[in-house]
């Protein structure tokens, strides 16, 4: 059962589904509307929505009451644990994925930020200390 849900705003839901499924191993749960899809990866549920007008039935990506449109981007992001980050990064680069930075060795983990086709960040990390590693296996469920 997915216990955690994150909503990302994307320009193109189909392109986003392909990215999260083919590059990061997410599974598609539903895509009932061109502006809405729900994916899953382990205990994470990722809701992808494209901006819709105020009258649209989909409630998650309408403009704010003051008219502000919802947009992709920003810095807040979810994180995925990977094994052997340098190898993963090489593969993703070869597949044409955009990187915001180079791999950085932090205190607990080695990390890098990639972007989905709409420019939303996703952080990939590989624990550098035993206590930073919570899972023997990070395969999608």
């Amino acid at each position, binding site marked *: *059962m*997915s216990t955690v849900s994150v*909503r990302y705003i994307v320009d193109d839901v189909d392109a986003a589904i392909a990215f999260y499924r083919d590059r990061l191993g997410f599974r598609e749960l539903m895509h009932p509307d061109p502006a809405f899809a729900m994916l899953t990866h*382990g205990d994470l549920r990722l809701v992808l929505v494209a901006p819709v007008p105020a009258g649209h039935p989909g409630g998650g990506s309408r403009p704010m009451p003051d008219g502000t449109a919802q*947009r992709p*981007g920003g810095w807040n992001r*979810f*994180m995925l644990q990977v094994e052997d980050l340098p190898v993963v990064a090489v593969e993703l680069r070869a597949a044409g994925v955009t990187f915001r930075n180079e791999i950085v060795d932090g205190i607990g983990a080695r990390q890098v930020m990639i972007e989905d086709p709409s420019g939303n960040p996703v952080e990939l990390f590989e624990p550098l200390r035993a206590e930073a590693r919570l899972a023997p*296996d*990070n395969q999608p469920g």
Partner: protein
Amino acid sequence: MAADPLDALRLPVVPVDPRPEFTAALLRRITSAAEAQTRINEAVSGTSEEVGNIGLAIQRALDNAEQMQAQMQARAAAIDELIASGALERHVSSQPAPQPPQGLPIAARVRDNPTVRYFVGDLDAAIEFYCQHLGFEEELRSAPAFAMLYGGGLRLLLSVPGLPGAGRALPDGTVPAAGGSNRITVQVTDVTAAVAELRTAGVRIRADVSAGVAVRQALIEDPAGNLVELYEPAVGYHERPSAS
């Protein structure tokens, strides 16, 4: 029945009684990972110093798993206390706790928590917001740059822009910032009541309750201006089958 994300907090800790075939598969996987690491070490260092240490690596992996399980049990005990004290009841549904799936493999139990990083200008204010209003627990605080909170199955990392760690500038000088439209979503049992209570407490409501296709939802802001979505399942709400 709709699942409350915080239901995970109420699951009793059941001693793991693995099936023998699963234990064997896990051991094979750990062994294979340790051997792979040894090969990498050899390739990097040009020596085979680690060759004799596969057993040691396996033991380390097993020790980590045990340590992890002990930590989870301690956490569950602490959460039981919180539930008993009523501290977690404010927005938590009153549905009966679901029974844990039987025969769940160890790997599923020790899976990493989904993790999200939010940028906040004021670390203390953000910690107070998430703990007081949304029932998160503080796991660690490395002031002034970083904190780690847990809420339901979510691990929320808070980083301060411009400070060491994830808040530092990118190579091109760009500094991370709070805000944007992407957000975590938190399930509540009565979104109207939750919004009313939060408003009274002085929390900024970015978008009041509205109806979507299968949920009723609202957007609130943390003190740094990051969005948090509150939602209440309605007719047609999708729930992933629990036997995944």
